[in-house]
């Protein structure tokens, strides 16, 4: 067994996912299958291989450049807050975080 029920619940907590009892058991079995399949990566000797995080470097494309840091008007707060499920300008509202 690659992953236990306790581990599934721990990972769900890390990922901030509420799972039902049925989901925990189904996910445990499915993740177990997937992780067993992924174990085939252990067949390869990668001790002298560099990790690859980005495709562009690998193809030595001309260096991507960051844009110039110029101050520009960015008056979007109203449009952004309109999409929030709970807001009171100029803030997003969330359940109480700090206990007095």
């Amino acid at each position, binding site marked *: 067994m690659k*992953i236990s029920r306790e*581990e*599934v619940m721990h*990972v*769900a907590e*890390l*990922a*901030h*996912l*509420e*799972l039902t009892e049925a*989901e925990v058991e189904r*996910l445990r079995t*499915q*993740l177990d*299958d*997937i*992780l067993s*399949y*992924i174990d*085939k*990566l*252990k*067949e*390869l000797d*990668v001790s002298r*291989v*560099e*990790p*690859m*995080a*980005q*495709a*562009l470097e*690998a*193809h030595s*494309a*001309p260096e*991507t*450049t*960051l*844009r110039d840091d110029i101050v520009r008007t960015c008056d*979007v707060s109203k*449009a*952004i807050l*309109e*999409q*929030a*499920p*709970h807001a009171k300008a100029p803030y*997003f509202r*969330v*359940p*109480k*975080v700090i206990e007095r």
Partner: protein
Amino acid sequence: MSAVKKWTVFSVRAALDAKTISARELTAEFYSRIEKRNPELNAYLTLSPERAYAQADRVDAMRASGKPLPPLAGVPVAIKDVISTRGIRTTCASRMLEDYVPPFDATAVARLEDAGAVILGKTNCDEFAMGSSNENSAFGPVRNPVALDRVPGGSSGGSAAAVAAQLAVGALGTDTGGSIRQPGALCGVPAMMPTYGRVSRYGLIAFASSLDRIGPFATTVSDIAAFLAVISGRDENDSTSASVPVPGFFAEMQKPVEGMRIGIPAEYFGEGMDPEVRQKVEDGIEVLKKLGCRTVNLSMPHTDYAIATYYIVANAEASSNLARFDGVRYGLRVDGSSLREMYENTRGRGFGTEVKRRIMLGTYALSSGYYDAYYLRAQKVRSLITRDFTEAFKKADVIVTPTSPSPAFRIGERIDDPLAMYLSDIYTVTGDLAGVPAISIPCGVTSDRLPIGLQIFAPAFMEARILQLARAFEGATGDSS
């Protein structure tokens, strides 16, 4: 399929020039097709007639005043619903974003519209682009227009189905692990994944940032070139978009293919491939030989590790990217007694089964004690897979393979077996990991009339070479009309 007139970028322009139709009339024609056909296909999630007709009227006004028309003037297009559209609901086919309306356009969308294209609406897909069958949409599966009991492929299934059924002349999709090319193959339309960095990702709601790419679906290779020319090029809003010059795809495409070296990697023709797929792809290679290309037998020894690598890399990135859906700034919120409970309730109910599975896998692979064993190891194997391509391209100009090991499967057939579903991307994910461009083009049908796709890879930023070969193939097989 009912016989509807097949429009292309080029026939739209010819009709506008000849004044046999206006952009407004053409837009109306497409909406009437959608009204008839979409209820059974479920290819579109949202229509945007107001924006479409306003754009069509701009095109008609330009034409009336005798101004030169931009390259995609009046061309009706569809946009996958993971790509942001200002003022048009963008759901990612998820309950999480069911009512989300972006305040800005993705760069690719803005460029299409600047070039005169008419945006008809947003297409269905697997939730957050996670899937290979379009069955993971929170708003119901898309049906394959060629065979209604079958999947259109995924995750860009709605875009592929819309173009295949002529409910749009072209469409944007996204490819993270085969999600443009596999549905292109299963629906029988050309579909291209450009080089990583060729098309800006600005406004694409992120799944796996080091892999995600936007690319076009169309009905001909020339149309693919027309769309690609418009959406390509550096964008200062995406620091990973490349400053590599965009070539004139049309001029490049006309060049003869004689003498081109076609790499045939043994690993892409192994077990597990449907015999009819094998036959048609082998027939396709014979066509390329008759066009004067030369085949080179190759080995790409790490191909078999691509799916495992992909599911670690992509899902690790996804678990991080999807952390933003927390019920605070946009989308769904499900209340809870504490902040933490609100997060958990929102994410527990907003995300579907496959998305949760992938977030779990990605979180696990990045978690303390497993990072080196899974994520770091996968990144190293990614280097080896990329090296396979670099080595192959020393011996060959392009690589030709099947796009998918099987034609369109039945809706429901693989839904309970995530691993079997993942394996339908076995020939496509390698290209995502390596960052190279690839196309899928139709290369015949099975005895059940199901489309089969042929895939062509080229080195990074060599899309023109792919288009050149794809166009020659299309010309020789008569798939273009």
